[in-house]
């Protein structure tokens, strides 16, 4: 919580680096796509201008709602995938960056607007929640980390940090407790790297920095006050539109129950605050941020290479696709392409991860249903084979650190490929069959899951839900087909879609997806034989990358849904802005609508069917 005024002597090198950055590269303006052009035509070139690098800039933030309405209604950009902000401290404004897309596929349309840093938390911007309800959590995140007020937001509170936190941590002038230097590598490590513990080095070693005139003894505000206020205010009759909750006439007391953060059903440290009428849920609020470590701030300190292992720690079940999304984005900025063999290895690793992740999530869904660990263990056993392979190939079971810019870290041996073949051709199909025998017709599973946690296709799209949850509601949207990346346009596979929109169909979609992944794997394993052994890195392997100035939004389909990386480079060794659009976080936004009207035991199952990982939710 240190403010910019703290005196950390800037190292000479940093100053030199800053000077270098001063010589701004020539900013290229985006070329307008037909859609952007039609937007410009409608609103005039004064309001809609091409933005630096990508997208359009809405020059008057007061008219944001008007323009967004046009995007939604006239251009049919049904879903807003990502919303974030960038702090341009030198220019003195905060830029809001939105990516909206057609649910039928294609690249997203990026639009931006600006608000001055001074006005951000007083004047603010219009909220987009009336048009895109899915943006609710993301706007709260921007408010939390950047201090931008959104007028008209239904519940604008901090989301990842606690109420009462001092400052907006993603702003460039905010320094964390053990702040050393703006960017890595730190000058204190070499050549005169006398080791010192961080705790001894920094002045505010106890990690507390009070604002002026603050007396902690007098501070009594309950940080949950705001949360409970919003829950008590809403009348139960005014539930969300799809599942209107009606009290059946018996007079009962309403009760607020905290589930979590230490609760086995929440798959980590998530807190669900539910309001109950008897056993029926009438309202639900989520409290996030227990695992928040400000991944984005760390990443902006990191060099481009440093950040690869950090992405493993986002959704720690699916390290490989996380890395892929990140390296694809940086490769786009660097304008390099990986070698053929590396590309195949990436696909193989990602699809193995998908199979493993779905095994895991189905196993734990059964745990949530009350089938304690017997089914889960069967599936974890299968996943274990994938983990073992990763251990052997990459050196670590989950924190793989396998992808590099332009390639992968290690080649696979023919024996390892054969092992994968045994898994893909024999073991996994058998295990999936067995899983279906165990679960798909099981009466208890069906009774507990069919019709539970229903969310219609329209609401899914409005909430920007992605991944198996969206496909179980009848929307055939899978980035591997909708906006193909890597080699996915080479393979023959289907995008499984089911129409129930309930927990059972989410389970079934995952099963079908695993079979499709095996299909992709079979083809990839056959095709990789045609590539040159050992050719896994394009160009020379480097540890310092000077990434040309630019901007990229790169996204991949992880087992949880769409994982997007929004990155800005200013031409240096570090990212100027790095944002993660995580599927788990945004899918959680739809949880309330799925659970209201259900029984409290169902809330656990519905949460399980979303398959969230808190590492990715809180980042």
């Amino acid at each position, binding site marked *: 919580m240190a403010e910019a005024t703290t005196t950390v002597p800037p190292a000479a090198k940093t100053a030199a680096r800053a000077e270098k950055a001063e010589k701004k590269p020539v900013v290229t303006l985006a070329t307008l796509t037909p859609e952007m052009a039609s937007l410009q035509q409608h609103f005039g070139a004064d309001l809609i201008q091409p933005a630096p690098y990508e997208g359009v800039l809405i020059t008057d933030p007061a008219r944001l709602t008007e323009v967004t309405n046009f995007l939604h209604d006239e251009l049919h950009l049904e879903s807003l995938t990502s919303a974030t902000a960038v702090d341009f401290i030198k220019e003195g404004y905060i830029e809001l960056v939105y990516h909206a897309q057609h649910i039928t596929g294609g690249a997203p349309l990026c639009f931006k607007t600006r608000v001055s840093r001074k006005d951000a938390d007083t004047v603010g911007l219009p909220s987009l929640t009336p048009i895109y309800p899915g943006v609710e959590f993301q706007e709260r995140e921007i408010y939390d980390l950047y201090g931008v007020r959104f007028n008209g937001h239904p519940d604008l509170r901090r989301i990842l940090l606690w109420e009462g936190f001092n400052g907006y941590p993603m702003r460039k002038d905010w320094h964390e407790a053990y702040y050393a230097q703006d960017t890595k590598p730190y000058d204190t490590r070499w050549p005169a790297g006398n080791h010192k*513990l961080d705790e001894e080095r920094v002045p505010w070693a106890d990690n507390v920095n009070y604002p002026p005139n603050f007396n902690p003894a007098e501070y009594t505000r309950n940080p949950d006050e705001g949360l409970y206020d919003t829950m008590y205010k809403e009348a139960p009759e005014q539930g969300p539109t799809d599942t209107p909750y009606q009290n059946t006439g018996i007079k009962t007391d309403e009760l607020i129950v905290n589930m979590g953060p230490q609760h086995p059903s929440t798959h980590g440290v998530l807190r669900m605050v539910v309001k109950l009428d008897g056993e029926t849920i009438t309202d639900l609020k989520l409290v996030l941020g227990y695992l928040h470590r400000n991944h984005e701030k760390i990443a902006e300190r990191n060099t481009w290479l440093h950040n690869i292992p950090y992405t493993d720690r986002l959704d720690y079940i699916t390290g490989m696709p996380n890395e892929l999304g990140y390296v694809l984005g940086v490769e786009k900025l660097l304008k390099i392409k990986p070698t053929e063999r590396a590309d195949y290895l990436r696909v193989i690793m990602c699809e193995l991860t998908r199979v493993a992740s779905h095994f895991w999530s189905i196993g734990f869904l059964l745990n949530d249903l009350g089938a304690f660990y017997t089914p889960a263990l069967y599936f974890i056993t299968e996943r274990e084979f994938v983990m073992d392979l990763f251990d052997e190939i990459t*050196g670590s079971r989950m924190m793989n650190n396998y992808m590099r810019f332009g390639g992968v870290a290690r080649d696979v041996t023919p024996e390892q490929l054969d092992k994968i073949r045994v898994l893909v051709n024999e073991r996994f199909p058998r295990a999936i069959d067995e899983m279906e025998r*165990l679960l798909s017709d099981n009466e208890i599973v069906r009774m507990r899951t069919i019709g539970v946690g229903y969310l219609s296709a329209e609401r899914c799209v409005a909430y920007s839900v992605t991944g198996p949850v969206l496909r179980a509601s009848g929307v055939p949207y899978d980035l591997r087909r909708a906006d193909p990346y890597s080699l996915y346009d080479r393979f023959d596979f289907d995008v499984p879609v089911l129409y129930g929109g309930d927990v059972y169909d989410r389970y079934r979609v995952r099963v079908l997806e695993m079979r499709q992944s095996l299909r992709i794997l079979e083809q990839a394993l056959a095709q990789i034989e045609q590539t040159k052994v050992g050719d896994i890195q394009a160009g020379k392997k480097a540890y310092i990358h000077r990434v040309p100035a630019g901007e990229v939004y790169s996204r991949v389909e992880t087992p949880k849904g769409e994982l997007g990386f929004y990155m800005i480079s200013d031409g240096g060794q570090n990212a100027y802005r790095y944002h993660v659009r995580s599927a788990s976080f945004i899918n959680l936004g739809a949880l309330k609508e799925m659970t209201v009207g259900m029984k409290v035991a169902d809330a656990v199952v519905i949460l399980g069917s979303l398959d969230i990982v808190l590492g990715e939710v809180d980042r």
Partner: protein
Amino acid sequence: MSLLGTGILKGLGVTLKHFIQTYAEDFKYIGKKAGIEPRPLRRQNPANHGMVTVEYPREHMVMPENFRYIPFLVKDSATGEDKCTSCGICAKVCPPQCIWIVRTEDPVTKRPVPAPKEFHIDTSVCMNCGFCAEFCPFDAIKMDHNYEITSMSNRQTELVFDKDRLMMPDTYHAGIHPADWARELEDKKADEAKKKAAAEAKVAADAKKAAAAATGASAAATKTAPPPKPPAPPAQ
């Protein structure tokens, strides 16, 4: 779905099968080689239907060569010297910045000497990424397999490893990384061959030069040899 309850029965069949298979593997083992061979520790064989667990800590799994935990420094057992030249690359690529190196300086000339004076790795910060080993141009730092370094006391004294604690003989490295070691030896051989060829070429060139400059003043003879410089890191 037909009769109510058949789904559950089918599922119970799966559970029963698993229950039996778990023991079937053990019977197979008892039948074949009990008492002759120790139980195979890496049981995660896809053809195996039974249990896949080992009884840690009584048994330890065999780690694959690429497995990485925390890094160690390699000491050349032929010369007794550490291979590290304190070039600082590992400190630069380390994502959480947990490598601290003090470079040795020549007391007279103040020029850097290619050996670290101090080398610390804060293992409580290390994220086991393996970048240091991957980017070290001198094969001087490698990833260890020993994951049992838990400490119950002070982080500063127990988990910040200094040079002595980090240093391992290269025989240890060769033992846990046989393939990597073989590659190193190969590289060394190729290097030596290259050096030899270069030296021969140089001798030939020198002879030619000497012949050409035989009549001139022998200025070269008075020139002192420059102090050994650390080998340049490879181009980025």
